[in-house]
């Protein structure tokens, strides 16, 4: 496994920092090279966490969608309710692209539930919004942690 992805990214960063960037003229290209280094640092610090991140996110989405189904089943289009009900999560050892695909699909379902709940009775709509808000707060915590290395702060 060695060099692994982390070794390679760290090595590329060293080459860029010590040889390539100093050889560039000050200005546009050097600035872009520095931004590239910033992105490489993000990748080096996060690549090994991506599967766990996606599994957590997908589990939270799945859980929230099941709760939404309990709350609003009668107000959802039958096809959407069945989609949510019949959804089977990817295996724990699925590759990242499969987890990403699942994530996209689950996010889409959640948006469709919210849209459908717009025309539901106020009590149902309110509960749907609360469930989605609870999910969104947790999702935000995950995302803020994810971009901690690389977040642009001034």
């Amino acid at each position: 496994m060695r060099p692994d992805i982390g070794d390679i990214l760290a090595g590329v960063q060293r080459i860029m920092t010590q040889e390539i960037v100093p050889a560039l003229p000050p200005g546009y290209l050097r600035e872009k090279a520095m931004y590239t280094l910033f992105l490489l640092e993000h990748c080096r610090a996060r690549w090994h966490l991506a599967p766990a991140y996606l599994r957590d996110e997908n589990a939270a989405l799945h859980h929230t969608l099941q709760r939404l189904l309990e709350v609003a089943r009668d107000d959802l289009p039958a096809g959407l309710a069945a989609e949510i009900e019949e959804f089977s999560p990817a295996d724990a050892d699925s590759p990242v692209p499969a987890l990403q695909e699942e994530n996209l699909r689950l996010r889409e379902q959640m948006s469709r539930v919210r849209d459908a709940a717009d025309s539901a009775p106020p009590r149902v709509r309110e509960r749907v919004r609360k469930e989605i808000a609870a999910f969104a707060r947790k999702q935000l915590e995950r995302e803020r942690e994810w971009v901690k290395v690389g977040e642009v702060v001034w």
Partner: protein
Amino acid sequence: MPQIHYNAWEVEIGDSLHRFLADQLPQGRNLRVSGLERCGGGASRETWAFDLHWQEDGGEREGRYILRRDPPVSLLETGLTTDRRHEFTVVRAVHGLGLPVPRMHWLDADGSYFGRPALIMERMSGQPTPPAFPASEDPKLRETVAHQFVDILARVHTAGWQSLGLTWVMEPPGPEQEAARRQVDLWQAVYEKDRLERHAIIEEAFLWLRTHLPSTNRIVLVHGDFRTGNYLYDETGITAFLDWELAHLGDPMEDLGWACMRFWSGQGLAGGLLPEEELFRLYEERSGIPVDRERVFFYKVLGNVKMAAIALSGVRAFCQGQALDVTYALVGFMVPRLCADIAEQIGL
């Protein structure tokens, strides 16, 4: 012709520039472009600085210029930003008011010279700021810049857009909620077009915005990106206000909300310049327009959503290989912080 070529785009731009300028200055002789240099910074346009020397009417002429060309895929392609004549016309009109903006010289609206739409404007002196005014600067300079910042905004808002000849590039919104609704529609369309995945908080924010649309019957010229980070300054204060491509007719509170977003505040100061209430007081004093804090708050929420939509447009361009610019990936890292502000604002 450019004297230093260190890669292909410089040769390409240098050749295009020479052809373009020769056609724009038919009386000019011995045109010579020097110091052609790609500039960093803004991600919405490709920018080059250059000097031009030529002879005309028996005399020597020279000027310092900026060339701005659309990137292969713009960070955002709204109805406002796709037509380069829009920015060109607005800045010319504002220049006519005596405000510190670059003089617009030439326009290649259809990209027939530069491959993509481009404009050439005066290169003004001064240094750019980060999105919050640097805390390390002299407090007296900060105060000067802060006052000029508010002065310029007040003068833009009180300019009387009807007399500026802008109606052919921008249509005034209707009464009451129309100005706010139009902006929400615009940025929701950008979000829907460019998102690669759904974002629960942004979508909640659009619902909130639609149920909190404020009314106004005072329509002014809105800069659309009025904030620290979009002006140049030196030891005398602001030397140039830039980036007018999002200018439109709308609610004056929109620029105030955008300028006061936490996202570009520093040390608790709006834009790193002055406390928000002080900014409002100065603005009212200079413009005579009362500040409606509820409307400002609405436009702060919209501002965070708009910035997130712009960032997501960049992410799409980066991920799909349409933009050769890593900045487009980095702006994606801003989205969680914007969403944190939105969640707090709308009580999520």
